[in-house]
């Protein structure tokens, strides 16, 4: 994230075995530690949702018609969206459901779906991107054409098809994750393909090929580490778009079944409410932002830690000397 981080890593450039060095360089970045803590907290909140709501004493789906002003459209009664000792973050407009409970439960769906989908997207994208770049002209043609088809098919149409054929026995979150993943892999694949094509000609990749590694082993050993930076950077940004995609799917009817909350849906519903009940919009928005921010910091840290040069070469000959800091 910040240069300070990069340079803190620099102090640690003493030989150490790859994996350990990576962790050390990662941990040496204070912001990464902080971001990881924030993220861990979010995950914890998601996991402990039932506990937390029990602590608050609220049910995420219980209506409280008396807490909203029906005549004016259902605005929560009271300051800041009805924040009180009972409702820590206030209540939802129109329904009066407890916002805190909905947000912590929403974290489960949003983080879960968005993460798994991102993982699948990245895995698919990386595999297909490498296949296109390394598999020869035909492989490239095929993957590129499949990418075109996938990119051109609107979510709505896919959803229609899936709604029709997916057996009801498939759990909703799985279905959603699959749809989102199936629709969002090609960005990664494009990036990977572009990067791999450029890297393919570099001598160290040639050397690995001569060493006797097969194409895929070369990809894994030489290309992937170099592609990690753009892929991680991109993957981090897939998370918020997946959260929003989940909301869009619920619009189309294959989202998480109501009344189960999710951040994306809350954002969608809160859209028009920002003047009348700002907390309703701001809470999920802020949480999504914090998630993305912490992931970005972590991703950036991983990127830095993965590159042994970053620390010592990045600033070669630039004025801002590190010498003083290190010595």
């Amino acid at each position, binding site marked *: 994230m910040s240069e300070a981080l990069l340079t803190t890593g620099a102090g640690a450039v003493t030989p150490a075995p790859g994996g350990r060095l990576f962790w050390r360089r990662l941990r040496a970045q204070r912001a990464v530690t902080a971001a990881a803590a924030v993220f861990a907290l979010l995950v914890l909140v998601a996991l402990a949702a039932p506990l937390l709501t029990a602590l608050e004493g609220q049910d995420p789906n219980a209506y409280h*018609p008396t807490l909203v002003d029906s*005549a*004016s*459209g259902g605005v929560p009664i009271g300051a800041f969206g009805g924040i009180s000792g009972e409702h820590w973050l206030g209540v939802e407009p*129109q*329904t009066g459901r407890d916002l805190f409970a909905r947000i912590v439960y929403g974290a489960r769906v949003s983080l879960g779906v968005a993460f798994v989908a991102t993982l699948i997207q990245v895995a698919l994208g990386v595999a297909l991107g490498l296949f296109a770049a390394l598999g020869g002209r035909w492989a490239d043609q095929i993957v590129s054409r499949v990418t075109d088809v996938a990119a051109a098919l609107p979510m709505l149409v896919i959803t*229609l098809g899936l709604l029709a054929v997916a057996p009801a026995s498939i759990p909703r979150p799985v279905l959603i994750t699959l749809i989102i993943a199936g629709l969002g892999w090609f960005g990664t694949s494009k990036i990977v393909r572009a990067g791999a094509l450029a890297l393919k000609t570099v001598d160290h990749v040639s050397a690995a090929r001569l060493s006797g590694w097969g194409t895929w082993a070369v990809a894994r050993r030489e290309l992937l580490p170099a592609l990690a930076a753009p892929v991680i950077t991109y993957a981090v940004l897939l998370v918020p778009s997946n959260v929003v995609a989940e909301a869009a799917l619920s619009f189309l009817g294959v989202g998480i079944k*109501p009344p189960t909350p999710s951040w994306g849906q809350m954002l969608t519903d809160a859209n028009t409410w920002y003047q009348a009940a700002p907390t309703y919009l701001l809470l999920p928005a802020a949480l999504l932002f914090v998630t993305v921010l912490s992931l970005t910091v972590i991703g950036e840290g991983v990127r830095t830690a993965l590159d042994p040069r970053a620390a010592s070469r990045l600033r070669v000959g630039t004025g801002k000397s590190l010498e003083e800091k290190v010595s």
Partner: protein
Amino acid sequence: GPEGGGAGNAGAGASGTPHQGGALSVLNNEAQTDFDPARLYTSGGGNVPSLVFRTLTTRKRAGGAEGTKVVPDLATDTGRPNADATVWTYTLKDGLKYEDGSPITTADIKYGIERSFAAELSGGAPYLRDWLVGGAQYQGPYKDGGKGLASIETPDARTIVFHLNKPEGEFPFLATQTQFAPVPKAKDNGTKYEEHPVSSGPYKVVKNENNGEHLVLERNPNWSASTDPERKAYPDTIDVRSGLDQAVINQRLSASQGPDAAAVTTDTNLGPAELAKVGADKQLAARVGTGHFGYTNYIAFNPNVKPFDNPKVRQAIAYAVDRTSAVNAVGGSSLAEPATTFLPNQKAFGYTPYDLFPAGPSGNAAKAKELLKEAGYGDGLTVTLTHSNAKGGPKGPEVATALQDALKKAGITVKLQGLEGNDYNDTVASVKKEPGFFLRGWGADWPSGGPFLAPIFDGRQIVKDGANFNTGFLNDASVNSEIDEINKLTDLTAAAPRWGALDKKIGEQAVVVPLFHPVYKRLVGKDVKNVVISDWTGVLDISQVAVK
């Protein structure tokens, strides 16, 4: 019909006397994709269409309950029935002309109605097909070898006679629909006609872009105000833009910047979040008109599906519903009124108040539990509620979850099954696929009990292989015959209370649980005058609006 337009008592907009001139701008959400009079399905002739199409009769252009009356338009009166109301005769006014100056004849009205039977131009209301003699078999003028529909007679250019299968006292209401607009045969080019329909009203279409997305209407010089006391036609031009987001429409109307000062909307309500803002701003509040349209949202049961075959279960649910939550789900008490009757709460419908299973504002869980116990479900009950996935709609997930929460208190576990728009419509209207417990709504084609009760509760209207609306499969001989009896009445004020009584009688069966009637809040631009919202359509009547 099953879907509704919008309702009225007005009192909004700028004060002062309205004047001719200026340009009115209409900001809409839905495009006017259909502009063929044969295909339109609009209550009372619609809004924008009624500026172009005149019909035999029309709705009275007045605010509130006064607006539920039917008045003559092209015809000299609202129709002359024979003794048992099976033959209706109309005579055209003098000096009626199309936009090109040619005279309007009854043959053109007959032709317009015949066209609406063509498969290419389907979409209109079902009444002509059901009521006219030979209507069910007729396939339109393109396939009849020039014979036409014999049950419509035009003895001369000014007279037209309709022969019906059975007595229909509400025929004058039907004659307000756009199928009754004249279409000159020579100008008919089938599906292309809507690109430039020939105007008989105060405005003609000069531009129709993107299939009704952007319409520009200008004065029709051959329209004469003297033959048309209803349409005021103050503005010189009317510009209708659609495809706009509802929230944006309301933002634009409230900002009333530039041309938006002279803007109205005919299809966009104030949303719940916007109500709060309007409530806090007096100036804005003065620009909001309130309307009612005969519409009821309800829970429908399919008694062929267990456990809803048991009336006690249905009653238990009727007791358990929390109407406050349900009302809140669609925007609160300003946008919906809790309903315990199936008929809308308007005189024209014959509204007779009753509350057979009093649930109070937030449900009577105790009574519901008691009934469930009697029905053999003392340990609780799990059911599936089918709803539409359309967000924010009255049949959508919001209302469904509100009910789910309410029924939980009565020990009923509700699972939700959300269906995508088409699927939902298809499923709930199919005799074979109809679920046991679902959300439904019904709107009036005209303000009377007939089109409200008959399709839903008349046993002879159960459609086996088409869209069925008698979802409760009610086939009660006494109900059927009472419907026939009331239909014979041509005195609508006498008919109304009998519809109300019938409603209550049907209500005892608990095949539906009424939830709420929607209320419409419409914002207008700051320069808009003469805002009229009738209880027939619930929307502001463009033909009355002035911008000067």
